[in-house]
């Protein structure tokens, strides 16, 4: 009985988390322009999606941006983690502390401060500013994940490699990178997810020339969102899901 209640409770929480997602997916197949009523199964929204070039473009930009952000912040975050792990330098504690402050600070604080610096420096808002801004709030997650992993790598492994004739580059390539690969992957995925999900920072730093999906949809909210947006979101969800599952498998099998 206690066990049943426990699983019931867990199911309820998951239901709460998944219902809006399910609704989006279900209504993407709904043969009615209004979200409230179910009029039977259709794929016409997927068909009409192909004619909505601006929506498709916005979605592709979002995906492209998220992939760039994930890659860039993985590089930055990993360099940072290795530096924090390996070197002792002035300001190390400040850097370390700032990481958690960045992770905890609400997006609007970062969004406002970044847009101000971009405007003052005269950097035109667009892809570059989006990439930099998203990377600023993503890289601490990579750093923390990689740092945790690095702490688990014993120093004698790199000494053993040096003892067997490996130079610094060899050690990095053959020992360190393979060992922290799962953390790199987790960090990349985290950044990708955060970038796709972000609304507020993008709202401030995207400008008008590089419109990504959440902002496109945000501008549509007041007038009402067409069901082909549901279709797009469902399609994007499945795409992401399969890409992630596939790459997860890949990393697992390599291990």
């Amino acid at each position, binding site marked *: 009985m206690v066990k049943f209640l426990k699983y019931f409770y867990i199911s309820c929480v998951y239901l709460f988390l998944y219902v809006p997602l399910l609704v989006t997916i279900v209504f993407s197949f709904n043969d009615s322009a209004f979200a409230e009523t179910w009029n039977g199964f259709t794929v016409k929204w997927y068909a009409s999606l192909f004619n909505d070039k601006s929506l498709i473009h916005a979605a592709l930009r979002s995906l492209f941006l998220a992939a760039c952000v994930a890659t860039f912040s993985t590089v930055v975050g990993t360099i940072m983690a290795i530096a924090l792990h390996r070197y002792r330098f002035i300001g190390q504690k400040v850097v370390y502390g700032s990481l958690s402050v960045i992770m905890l600070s609400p997006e609007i604080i970062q969004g406002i401060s970044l847009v101000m610096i971009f405007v003052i420096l005269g950097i035109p808002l667009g892809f570059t500013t989006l990439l930099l801004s998203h990377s600023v709030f993503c890289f601490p997650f990579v750093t923390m994940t990689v740092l945790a992993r690095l702490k688990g790598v014993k120093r004698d492994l790199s*000494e053993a490699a*040096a003892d*067997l004739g490996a130079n610094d580059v060899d050690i990095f390539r053959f*020992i360190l990178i393979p060992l922290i690969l799962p953390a790199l992957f987790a960090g990349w995925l985290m950044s990708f997810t955060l970038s796709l999900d972000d609304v507020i920072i993008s709202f401030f730093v995207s400008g008008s020339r590089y419109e990504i999906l959440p902002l496109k949809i945000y501008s549509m909210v007041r007038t009402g969102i067409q069901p082909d947006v549901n279709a797009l979101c469902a399609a994007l969800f499945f795409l992401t899901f399969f890409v992630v599952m596939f790459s997860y498998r890949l990393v697992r099998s390599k291990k």
Partner: protein
Amino acid sequence: MEKPSVPLLELKSVTKFFGANKVLDDIDLSINDGEFLTLLGPSGCGKTTLLRLIAGFERPTTGKIVMNGKEISHLPPNRRAVNTVFQQYALFPHMTVFDNVAFGLKMKGFPKEEIETEVFQALEKVKMNMFYLRYPAELSSGQQQRVAMARAFINNPKILLLDEPLSALDYRLRQDMQIELKELQRDLGVTFVYVTHDQEEALAMSDRVAVLNEGIIEQIGTPIQIYEEPRNMFVAKFVGEINVFDGMVIKVGDNDFETIVEGMFYRLRKPSSFEIVRGSKIKVLLRPEDMVVSKVNDPEAEAPDNALRGVISFLVYKGRTIDLWIQTAGGNMVMATQFFNEDDPHIIYEINDVVNVSWIKDWEVILPDV
């Protein structure tokens, strides 16, 4: 015992500081080609640092390390003809046994086919060729140890450094591996420098043992020299169990001297290591297995010459031997190891038995009392 050969590696007045902390103090040490040298000492004595200096993980603060007449003090580890077997083995967890062993040759750019033959040869030597596809996590600690050995000696080092390689193994396996390691060393003909805090291991395997304490070498010599002729109290106490008696020199002869130990007169042979002076204090050291114990049937009778009277206060049965702790009349606790006498299997020692304790003549070690 020492082979008359040119030293392969020499440490010339090597000192090492970590910050203000002096870890090694003016170490002179030469290592001969093909020998099995053990650095023995308690934890923190500097033995591992000494090993890391030879490997190249640390640089000496002052002094020189010379190999085959060339100074190598400032060469990085990847440019020294020296390889290390690490304490926790440091096997690369993401590589198979094969890739672990192949790593060194791969770094040196050997062709693939050659690497393959060499790796299987090396694995054969440690009886691990069946496991070449396994990952380290899938091996027992004994197997990991063998792989770590193979990974190190495949590079044909002039010297193989072993940092307490057996400490992670259980007692039984450790005994077996001691023999295997020794055989492997003979087979390979490579110089081994072996670090351990386990004196039994050191005595069992080494050609020479260097006893380290607080950054200096207290004594270096063959296991027999170290065990039977300890040069000072530290070596005597660290290597094996030993009984220490205080003595006072009362008369000095040509070859011997007279002394009082525990109120008894003894005539002992003069030691060669230092001058015996009349009236000076000395220490008389005796190994437990050199003690002779005999049961006293009549406690009223006088103890014979050269024997101390005592009472067994504690005993430990060890199968082949029995360890007795005997409280002497003078208040000392003497430890004696007795082998079971096949002629007289009925001797049974019990607590509170009254015994006479003496020792086999001339087997004592005399040290000055400082």
